[in-house]
Each structure stands twice: as structure tokens, then as C-alpha cells.
């Protein structure tokens, strides 16, 4: 399970390296599961419950990372607004501003809890905004294997990493390789390497985070109609594996990007603009963006599902590229 794979990754990294510590609100009680058992094993020096002061404690995590610690900070994407200054002005900018002197091995777990009537204040999916800001690595894992491998890579990376975790995936199942079965003895997934999660030939669908679930469902449906969809999960948005997308579009000639974040200035917009700039002559039809409608997330279950990408929207989009 996604959240268990995450938990495993954190345990492995805390075991491996004493400078890794875990911090956030109520993480000792582990309300959401990812930090389960950490406090019991590592104690109060390495598992810190913080006051409600995201700017303060994320800033403190950043400061500690400058002098040798490797913090993992847990928060919700929606609570990062209060901490923007420390994330942008300090974490993202410090290394460059100081001519490379700073090393910032800080990992932020930014949980996105949309889709379950959390309403506007708790449903943010803000990775496109952070993609606009240089200096941050933006991770968006969509499978248990990826979240484990990318979390481990993040903790070891010397730059600030934000892992946008789609809470709709928290309970999904999927194979995670056993460490014993791996050559290196552990699962480390490099940044900037996308993954073809389904091969196909008629249309390329790029799916981000939880959107891949819908993309896979759509592909299964479309297959019944004889339409073959290739699904690509970039897995990390900064760095972005452009090649895997461009290569796929070269093959299929069609592009649909599925993105649960708001559509304006989105990751989907970015990917479409990259493909049209660099792969224009391969496109046989206009690319289509299926992203969240440009409106806040309403509480009512009568409206919320209309906002987000789903299999039906993807099916229609794919067909549109083919007509």
C-alpha cells in the first residue's frame, strides 16, 4: 500500500542515517499512517511534534539542514501557504544566493487531500506554483513503488525536495520490490526519469499523480473500442523527463495531459507548451488538457467530482485527438 511503502522508506532512511529526523504536527500519534511506529522506534530526539507554526518549523528544518541534518517534514499542501516565505525565500533560493555554499537536504511531504469533501481550504494541489520557482525539486509519485523509491532518493538528495502526495492514492495497492530482490539491496528511483505505465500507439496520455488511476481506467475502456493509449507518468515534475514524453508523441502523434491541479499555468500547460515548442511537427492533432476546473473546490459532493479529471473526460479527450 502507498502509505505503507512511504512508511518503509522513512524507516529505512532513518535507520541508515542518524542525521535524518522527522517533524510535523501530531506525527508521534501518526494520524495518517505514514509516520506510524517512528516515535516508538526513534524517540523524541528524532521524531518531533511541532506547534502549529509551519513557517517557523519548516524554516527551522531548513536551518538545520544547512548544518548537517536531513529533516523530513510532514504537512498538508494547504498548510504551506503560511510557510511560503521559508520555502521560497529560504529553501529554494539560499543555495544559489550564496553561490553554492548552502546544502539543503530537506524533504517536505506535502499531502494533497482533495476529492473527499475537504472544501476549498484543505484541497490544494499547488505543485504548479512551486514548479514556477527555481530551486525546488518537485516529486509526484503515483504508485507504492514510486513513493518508496522517490522518498528515499529525496532524503539523500542535497537539494530541497517537495513530495506532493495524492491522498487519493494513500490506500492503493501495488507491488513494491523486496530489498533482497534488488541488485543494490534497496529501492532508489532517480529523479527526472518518467515511466511508461502502459504502452500504446494511438495517443499519448501524460498523467500526474492520482490522475494516472483515471488514465488507466480510460485506457482499458478505450482498448475495447480499439484505441491504444500510451500512458506516461513523469513521476518528478522538476526535473521533468521531457524526452520520454516527446518520444511517445513522436510515436503516437497525439497528446492528452491529465492533471488534478488547476488548469491555468498548470503542469499540463507546461507540458503542452514544451511538446508544441519541441515536438510540434510530430503532433497530428491539437493537444488536450484535462485538468481541474478553474474554480475552488466546493464542499458538496454534488459538485466536487465535476472539477477533477476522470476516466470519462479522458476518454473524450483521447477520442477528440483522434477524430
Amino acid at each position: 500500500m502507498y502509505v505503507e511503502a512511504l512508511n518503509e522508506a522513512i524507516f529505512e532512511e532513518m535507520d541508515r542515517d542518524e542525521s535524518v529526523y522527522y517533524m510535523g504536527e501530531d506525527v508521534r500519534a501518526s494520524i495518517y499512517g505514514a509516520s506510524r511506529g517512528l516515535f516508538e522506534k526513534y524517540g523524541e530526539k528524532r521524531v518531533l511534534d511541532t506547534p502549529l507554526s509551519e513557517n517557523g518549523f519548516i524554516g527551522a528544518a531548513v536551518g538545520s539542514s544547512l548544518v548537517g541534518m536531513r529533516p523530513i517534514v510532514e504537512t498538508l499542501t494547504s498548510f504551506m501557504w503560511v510557510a511560503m516565505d521559508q520555502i521560497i525565500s529560504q529553501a529554494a533560493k539560499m543555495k544559489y544566493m550564496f553561490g553554492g555554499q548552502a546544502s539543503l537536504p530537506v524533504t517536505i511531504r506535502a499531502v494533497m487531500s482533495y476529492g473527499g469533501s475537504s472544501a476549498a481550504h484543505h484541497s490544494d494541489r499547488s505543485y504548479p506554483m512551486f514548479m514556477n520557482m527555481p530551486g525546488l525539486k518537485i516529486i509526484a509519485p503515483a504508485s507504492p513503488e514510486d513513493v518508496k523509491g522517490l522518498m528515499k532518493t529525496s532524503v539523500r538528495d542535497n537539494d530541497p525536495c517537495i513530495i506532493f502526495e495524492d491522498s487519493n492514492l494513500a490506500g492503493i495497492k501495488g507491488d513494491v520490490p523486496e530489498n533482497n530482490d534488488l541488485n543494490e539491496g534497496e529501492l532508489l528511483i532517480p529523479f527526472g526519469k518518467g515511466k511508461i505505465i502502459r504502452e500504446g500507439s494511438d495517443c499519448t496520455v501524460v498523467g500526474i499523480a492520482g490522475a494516472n488511476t483515471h488514465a488507466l481506467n480510460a485506457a482499458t475502456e478505450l482498448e475495447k473500442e480499439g484505441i491504444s493509449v500510451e500512458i506516461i507518468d513523469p513521476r518528478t515534475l522538476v526535473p521533468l523527463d521531457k524526452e520520454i514524453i516527446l518520444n511517445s508523441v513522436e510515436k503516437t502523434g497525439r497528446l492528452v495531459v491529465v492533471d488534478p491541479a488547476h488548469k491555468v499555468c498548470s503542469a499540463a500547460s507546461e507540458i503542452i507548451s514544451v511538446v508544441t515548442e519541441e515536438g510540434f511537427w510530430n503532433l497530428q492533432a491539437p493537444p488536450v488538457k484535462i485538468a481541474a476546473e478553474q474554480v475552488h473546490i466546493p464542499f458538496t459532493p454534488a459538485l466536487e467530482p465535476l472539477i477533477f479529471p476522470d476516466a470519462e473526460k479522458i476518454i473524450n479527450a483521447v477520442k477528440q485527438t483522434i477524430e
Partner: protein
Amino acid sequence: MIPKEKQVLMLERMTRIRQFEKALIESQKSGEIVGSLHTYIGQEAVATGACVALNDDDYIAGNHRSHGHPIAKGGDINKAMAEIFGRKDGYCKGKGGSMHLADFSIGILGESGIVASSVPVATGAALASKLKGKNFVSLVFFGDGASNQGACHESMNLAALWNLPVIFVCENNQFAVTTSYRDSVSVDHISDRASAYGMPGVLVDGQDALAMYEATSEAVKRARKGEGPTLIEGLTYRYEDHSLGLASVRRDSSYRTDEEIEEWIKRDPIEILKDNMISQKLITQKDFDDLEKKEIISVEKALNFARNSPFPEPEDLFDDLFTDPIKFA
């Protein structure tokens, strides 16, 4: 003495809050409503004592523990219930839900899901009062956990500096989710921090509605005279866990004991007010039973109102984002 009708009003509203929350717990269990719910049971005296000390054209703003405040200010429980049910007749047409109840027509500027984010907003409403030369007061509810946010510091400094008619009511229910305020606030009492802004800080028994009423009335007087803000800390307790759906938290982590909860239930705010009123011969037990029955019925009605209200239609989705809708690609 606090006038009888005020005391009755408090008893009524506290009972209404209690019954409202109880009904929600049932509806949540039965799956009739979705999303997270933060109940106010145990804390009723704080919001009620504070709000009954205000006028209708005074403003309040609140937080995620969000049903007690609007009901205490006199909000319409039909609309509140319908909102929590995600219906079109809800306060926010179903778009806000439990954490975002608001009724601008009676000064309820809205509950807020981001901890402490209402504090600057309420300070701004007070600023408007001053700039307009009006006499209304603005009161904001926030928790012990919230008091550690920078937004509180900035707002309190602003309010004190500019002598704004704002009342900061910290509802210290002693925990932020599972974290004791003793592990999150570096001084004994949040009200102790008032001196750092040059404003009065009052520690009040938050189980005693009359004490909350009196402290707030004092603060209102100061505010209307242009003497600036007050910080009131109501020491209180929530009976349920942080939010419905998180009930496992208590079992898994020992953030508080059953004994502690039981101790606090012995100081139930409704019982305290009721007993006091009975001993003062303001009401009889029968009066209370009638009042309670009335509130139970009004909550039943609210449930029915909510259940019978339609869900919003797809075409409502884009309304209310801007004054005039903007079409996006």
C-alpha cells in the same frame, strides 16, 4: 447580575449547540454526511458567553471548530445544517461545508479551515470600524494551537498599536489534535502573552458561560470606548476527539486519559449554567427540560430541512467565484 433573559438566551444557545453537534455525530456515523467534522461539545460556554455579550451588528470570525460560533451568534441552524449536508439551501449553497459556515447578514464573517487565518481578517473588520468612525466590535475565536501562529502575533500587535475594537478569544481546549498546549505554548497561559502587546489579558473559566459573558462585556466596553483590544483565554475542554473520523487517535496514542475526560465532563458548561440558574431561582429543572426539548425539536427540524434541500446543480459550479463569472479555457 446578568439579566435573566441573557442567561436564558445563553442556556438556549448552548443547548442548541449541544444538540446540533449530537445530531451531527449520528449523521456522520450513518454516512449521511461526509467530510471532517469538528464538534464543539464541552466548549459551549466559551462561544455563547462571548457572543451573547455582542450586538447583532458586531462581527465574529471563527475556525475549523466551527458550528458553535455561528449558533452562539444567533445563526440559523436550518441553513447551518443544510450547509453541512452540502445542500443548496445551506449558508454557502453547499460550497463551504462544515468548516466554512458564514452569515454576513448577522455579522458572522465566516469560519475558516486554515488555523489562525481568521485572526487578521477579524482585525481588519475592527480596522474598518475605526476608519469609518463606527462603533461596532469584532471578535475572533481561535484555539490554543492557533495561538502559536505568526498571524496571531502580527494581528495583536496591529490591534494594540492602532487601538482597534477587536477581541481575541483564545479557546484553550488544551489540545491541538493530540498535542497538549503545554507542549506547544512556551508560557503557562496564552493570556500571559497579552502583556507583550500592551493589551489586557484575561484568563477565564471557559466552562462558566457567565464568566465568559462578563469578561467579554468588559472587553466590548473597552473596545467601544476606543481603548483597544483585549485577549481573553477561555480554559475549556473538548469531549470528543479532534474530529469525527479521527476517533482512533485516542486509542492509539495516549494523548489524554479517560479519567481526564471524565473529570472535565463533571464540569459540563450546560450543567454549570443550568444549576446556577436553578439555584438563583431564575428557572426550574422543568423549564430546562422544556427548553432542551424545544432545542431537540429545532435540531430535528433542521435535519429535515437539510435532508429535503436539493443538492446544487452542475451549473452552479462556477458561480460565486467572482462577482461576474470569468470563463477559462
